[in-house]
């Protein structure tokens, strides 16, 4: 039996519970839609245009830096698991690996890309 079957069961049941709750709400609650009620909330005034807003390019930079460190962590987890049985050389390899990526973080910081404004 594959252990991931248990995880799949957790995900299925974890989806069934909120679906059931929302369905119960849908059955029990009144439904009287009208255009004013369904208009999007904009602090009481008439909604203006679409929900389109201009986004900062910083959002992309944050996601980018996160992606790089996410992949870095993927490499480091097997390293961390085995570290106890490996010699000092493995530690040094890991430190080199992290240091190279920290250079990238420093670069982004020096360029002012990690600031919000």
């Amino acid at each position, binding site marked *: 039996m594959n252990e991931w079957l248990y995880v799949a069961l957790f995900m299925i049941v974890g989806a069934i519970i909120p679906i059931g709750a929302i369905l119960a709400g849908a059955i029990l609650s009144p439904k009287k839609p009208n255009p004013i009620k369904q208009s999007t909330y904009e602090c009481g005034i008439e909604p203006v245009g679409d929900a389109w807003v201009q986004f900062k390019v910083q959002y992309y930079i944050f996601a980018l830096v996160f992606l790089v460190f996410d992949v870095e962590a993927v490499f480091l987890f097997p390293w*961390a698991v085995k570290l106890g049985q490996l010699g000092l050389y493995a530690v040094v390899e890991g430190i080199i690996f992290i240091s190279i*990526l920290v250079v990238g973080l420093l670069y982004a910081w020096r360029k002012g890309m990690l600031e919000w404004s």
Partner: protein
Amino acid sequence: MTPEKIIFLIVAGATLVSALMVVTTRNIVHAAFWLIAALFGVAAIFAILNAGFIAVVQVVVYIGAIAILFIFAVMLTRKDLRDTSAQQNRNWQAGALIAALTFGGLAALFQSWEKLSVAAPAIPSSFDAVAELGSQLTSPSAYVLPFEVASVLLLAAMIGAVYIAFTRK
């Protein structure tokens, strides 16, 4: 038909349908969300293959980071929310033909390959894939060079992307 095969067929079918939606749906944000569904299906395939670490990494890297990067990039490059113009270029029939030929060629190659019916070896109960990966990635006689080169690659990607995305007009 064993239960394992049925599960595989359901997952593979759902994945391929999601992949088709990725390349055909008009709304680019929906295409990104269909891609997430397809990637999740591939993660399930990895889990069926007993590669638990790769399956989790697939979710962490692709769904947790790459998909978010895609959605942010869509947000940054839209003039209006719902673009309804044509999403396929003029030569889509030629593209479909090339794709069909590629699949046909690959399928023909598989048909003529005799190792196709090889049985999967049993995984020893004491085998820990993550620990084994750890020792291979740090061992000088195995993959320590790719390990370090990967970090240089990621550094280059990060610096390059930051530089490109921020160059003023």
